[in-house]
């Protein structure tokens, strides 16, 4: 398991736990007023679990298991590292902005970073999507 994969999976696991914790509090607040009102954090809950957990785990595992080039190289690492960094930054900007009543532009920036993360990872992975041994 390469270093980038380990970092990505650990970040995904942290996002999973944070997302589940927020989800638990939101669910709890549906049942009793004793739970804190965390409804403004619903967008963060979604971002953490859909992109911070699921998508990030998929990217990190894809970097690990996609076919390698002759000699064992996984190709250009910079776009892959960039994808992880952009994704994490984007998740927090787009997810936390509504709860912080930040300007709408912050969400747009967050979503843009997430899109760039997808593009960066596609640039990295595209040449590796081929038959094993080629």
């Amino acid at each position: 398991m390469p270093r980038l994969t380990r970092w990505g999976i650990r970040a995904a696991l942290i996002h999973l736990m944070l997302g589940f914790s927020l989800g638990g509090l939101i669910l709890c607040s549906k049942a009793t007023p004793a739970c804190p009102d965390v409804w403004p954090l619903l967008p963060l809950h979604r971002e953490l679990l859909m992109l911070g957990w699921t998508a990030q785990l998929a990217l990190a595992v894809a970097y690990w298991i996609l076919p390698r080039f002759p000699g064992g190289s996984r190709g250009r690492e910079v776009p892959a590292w960039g994808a992880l960094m952009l994704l994490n930054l984007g998740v927090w900007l787009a997810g936390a902005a509504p709860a912080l009543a930040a300007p709408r532009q912050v969400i747009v920036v967050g979503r843009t970073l997430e899109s760039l993360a997808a593009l960066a990872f596609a640039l990295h992975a595209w040449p590796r999507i081929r038959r094993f041994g080629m």
Partner: protein
Amino acid sequence: MPTLTRWYIKTSLAWFVAALSLGVVSYLLPASIPSSALQPVYLHMLVVGWITQLIFGVVYWMFPKASLERPRGSSTLAAATFILLNIGLAARAVGEPMTALGPAPIGRSLILVSAGLQWLAGLGFVANTWPRVISPSPHSTEERRTRFGAPRRRAQG
């Protein structure tokens, strides 16, 4: 494929079928029933019952071995995670529509149980998976062997 992974994957498929069926049912119900009765359950059956559970099962199967003695970490914790996740989600699937349709103390109790169980399932999965996020190498085998507190074997001969 370990037995527990087969359980995870088969149960995830069952949630997948159930979620999509609920998606059909939700459009056949009278318009007087609020969307909050089924929509959140439908979404969580898909993303927790299907996608997340499938990931949990495949990760348990395919991630690097944690140690020679306990290659997949604690099998008890992994099984507990499976049970907590599914009972938690089922409690939500029953409790949330009950609460949305009217004052139902049982429904609210089920929601609280669901929140706690699913949170514990997440914690169990992370605790069991974290030590397996490693780069296997022959030099680190001894170090990994001790991570879960497993007894060290005495040298033979």
